[in-house]
């Protein structure tokens, strides 16, 4: 500093001064960023202990180990899906908000998740994705929507007892058929189990239909009832006094693969299939009686886990894309749009032919920023995926942490994964540099 005393009218300070201004930053960048890159390159060539040189062995195992291959596959899914969806949604929202008065409020709402930590976002979405429709809002909405369109008022879970004595047997497709074919004038018993007795507490007791009780000559009678006594006991396959009839069950009489008669059980579980010519019939209860209630989707199961986490990611980042694109949109010359509209272009044509091309640079920036960000995704996967499906949801950044610190303690492999991650972002490094150079010119 002392060398610069006095009014030496030479414009611009001496280069040595730059060193002073740059020193803290360069020191930090050098030690915390440049040195680690070099260190990691060397470390990745050694095994877990750091003592044995393994050459490119660690990189080899990245591409041969099935667990790591899953992480790479997941990263590819992420990179293909997430940035595109975020950018497209951002574009749609940005264009549409131009048409509403409460655009600022809308933007704030969508932008808000940016301020929330990914950990908190993870906790939020663990709650959203809870399997139980009584807890998770996603499945609550799905089941409500589903139930309004198909009212399933049957007996899910009810089934015949699993043994050879049971008169009825469940087929592969869930249909319950009576073992012995029946003839008109006969009565059949169809005992079912698998429901809590309390669920039909208020039903009247089941009545056994006997041929003597007036089963018409052209009819097959019978009873469908819950063959379970609270606390156990009762005679299996017999209608006991405490046992309740199952009302409203559809019963069919089938002969030669054709339904000849259909009826529903009465409150006490009895039914009469009437109008049957003489012959042998199979009595069956169609599967629709037992359709399991729709319980929503298994969001956090192995198949949906990655899409589910990507959903959370979109929730966090769509606002970011929208704000950037909206800013780009405000810079689009209105005259061009007006001119096109006056020429009779539809709104869709204006959007596709003029707005999007003019926005292309912004869209590209948003897209690239998202790709870089997606490659490093860690927190959301770590928090949202339950332990048992984490292998299916795993991504490179998380695997790197797991391998090096999460119990594995294999820092050779960890370094290799870190370098691999670095290599993946190098194209974007070059993209940034070229963009900067172009802008400076």
């Amino acid at each position, binding site marked *: 500093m002392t060398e610069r005393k006095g009014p030496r009218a030479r414009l611009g300070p001496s280069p040595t001064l730059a060193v002073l201004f740059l020193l803290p930053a360069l020191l930090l960048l050098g030690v915390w960023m440049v040195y680690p890159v070099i260190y990691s390159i060397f470390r990745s060539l050694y095994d877990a202990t750091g003592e044995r040189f393994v050459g490119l062995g660690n990189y080899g195992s990245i591409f041969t180990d099935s667990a790591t291959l899953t992480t790479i596959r997941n990263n590819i899914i992420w990179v293909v899906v997430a940035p595109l969806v975020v950018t497209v949604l951002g574009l749609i929202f940005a264009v549409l908000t131009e048409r509403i008065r409460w655009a600022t409020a809308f933007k704030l709402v969508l932008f808000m998740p940016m301020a929330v930590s990914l950990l908190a976002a993870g906790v939020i979405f663990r709650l959203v994705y809870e399997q139980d429709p009584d807890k998770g809002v996603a499945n609550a909405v799905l089941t409500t929507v589903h139930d309004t369109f198909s009212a399933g008022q049957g007996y899910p879970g009810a089934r015949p007892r699993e043994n050879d004595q049971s008169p009825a047997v469940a087929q592969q497709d869930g249909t319950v058929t009576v073992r012995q074919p029946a003839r008109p004038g006969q009565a059949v018993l169809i005992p079912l189990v698998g429901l809590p007795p309390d669920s039909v507490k208020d039903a009247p007791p089941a009545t056994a239909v006997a041929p003597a009780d007036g089963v018409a000559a052209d009819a097959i009678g019978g009873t469908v009832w819950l063959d379970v006594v609270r*606390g156990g006991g009762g005679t299996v396959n017999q209608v006991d006094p405490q046992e309740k009839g199952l009302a409203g069950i559809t019963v069919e009489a089938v002969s030669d693969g054709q339904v000849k008669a259909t009826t529903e059980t009465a409150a006490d579980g009895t039914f009469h299939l009437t109008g049957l010519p003489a012959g042998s019939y199979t009595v069956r209860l169609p599967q629709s009686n037992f359709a399991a209630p729709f319980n929503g989707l298994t969001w956090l199961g192995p198949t949906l886990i990655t899409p589910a986490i990507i959903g959370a990611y979109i929730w966090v980042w769509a606002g970011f894309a929208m704000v950037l694109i909206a800013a780009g949109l405000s810079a689009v010359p209105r005259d061009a749009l007006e001119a096109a509209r006056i020429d009779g272009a539809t709104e869709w044509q204006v959007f596709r032919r003029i707005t999007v091309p003019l926005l292309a640079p912004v869209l590209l920036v948003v897209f690239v920023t998202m790709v870089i960000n997606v490659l490093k995704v860690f927190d959301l996967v770590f928090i949202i995926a339950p332990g048992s499906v984490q292998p299916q949801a795993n991504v490179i950044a998380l695997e790197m942490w797991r391998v090096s610190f*999460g119990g594995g303690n294999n820092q050779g492999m960890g370094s290799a994964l870190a370098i691999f991650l670095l290599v993946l972002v190098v194209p974007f490094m070059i993209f940034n540099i070229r963009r900067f150079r172009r802008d400076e010119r």
Partner: protein
Amino acid sequence: MMRKLPIPIALLALAAVACGGNSGGNSGGEPAVGQTSASSGGGDAAAAAKPLDGVTIEVAAKWTGDEQANFEQVLKAFQDKTGATVTYASTGEDTGAFLGPRIQGNNPPDVAILPQPGLVQQYADENALKPLTPEVQAQIDQNYTPYWKELGSANGQVYGVLVKAAHKSLIWYRQQAFDDAGAQEAATWDDLVKNAQLLADSGTPPFALCGASGWTLTDLFENVYLSSAGPENYDKLSKHEIPWTDPTVTTALEKMAQIFGKKEFLLGGASGALQTDFPTCVTQVYGQKKAAMVIEADFVAGAAAQSGAKVGEDAKAMAFPKVGDTEPVVLGGDIAVALKDSKGAMALLEFLASKEGGEIWAKLPGYLSPNRNVSPDNYPNELTKQLAQTIISAGEAVRYDMSDLAPSAFGGTDGKGEWKDLQDFLRDPSDVKGAQKKLEADAAKAFKK
């Protein structure tokens, strides 16, 4: 939380069987008890003469919530006694992930409580553990059977003190569900399956499996295996001396498939079970009352009580039924090790290994001591008293949790090795051979290192 509790009949039976089976082991142990009760007083006096004013000790364990609060009471007793300041750190589920970077960064906690003996070996190999001082070893020799001492050792060196035991051969059930279905406690596996069918028929899914917590599945396997294949095979499989493709493993997995394979046996089916972690499965049985049984260790009691069930009345436990000829008793435990060579660390370990430390802890709920000099009278209820007896008199057929003895990459890591393979087996229980192949491949990889 757990007040005075009536004795569940099942546990009496369990204790009776365990005691009967262990009479050989007991007679060998008894003189040792006499020996030590005299000298343990000396140990206490020595500890009291060591004030650690101004010394701070950090201890890390995976406990949270009530378990943490109870342990902190023990720590407080140590602080009052020595003047040291002890801070507790929760490691979360994955203790390895907590300690890994701390060890790398040369800044481990003074004492860590490892949930698996397998980790003792691993950290010993990494030279991260400090051998116990003669004072601590003396406490161990006084208070523990050689079997327990062995579990804390690696490469011929004693590193750890087993501070907390778990009794894993239990099946907890909800009395109401059993009453409704007319189900009974089961003495054999076939009985259990029959009763499960009874429960399913009555509309209550018999089992709430905690499939998302892989260790609950390994515990189940271990009980089935120990009972069906016998203790000798169990030891061999533990050390990977027989492969996982062995026919004994086939038998055990086929037995498990009798439960896994029936949709109506599992609450939410296999996919529901795989999303349920421990202790959510306990809540499902006792809180939401959606299922009848949960297969896990003594510590279910704490979670059951939290769900509002009265342990011993609503929530009862039965001994794990016999699958083959052996009455299975599988134990687990947490091992305290020193990661720093500090005076405070050793003093704390000495305290935890002592009769005094064990008895403070024993008075709190949810704890079983492997310390044979901790008098059973200290336990807050009969249930724990009985279980503690079984543990201390570890007999012929009593075995330590197999997965915890294995390298942690195989037996103790979320999403890896045995945890994952058994979860996959739960997903597809028809493929026994495939599951065995995967288990063998993972075991071979982990044991080779």
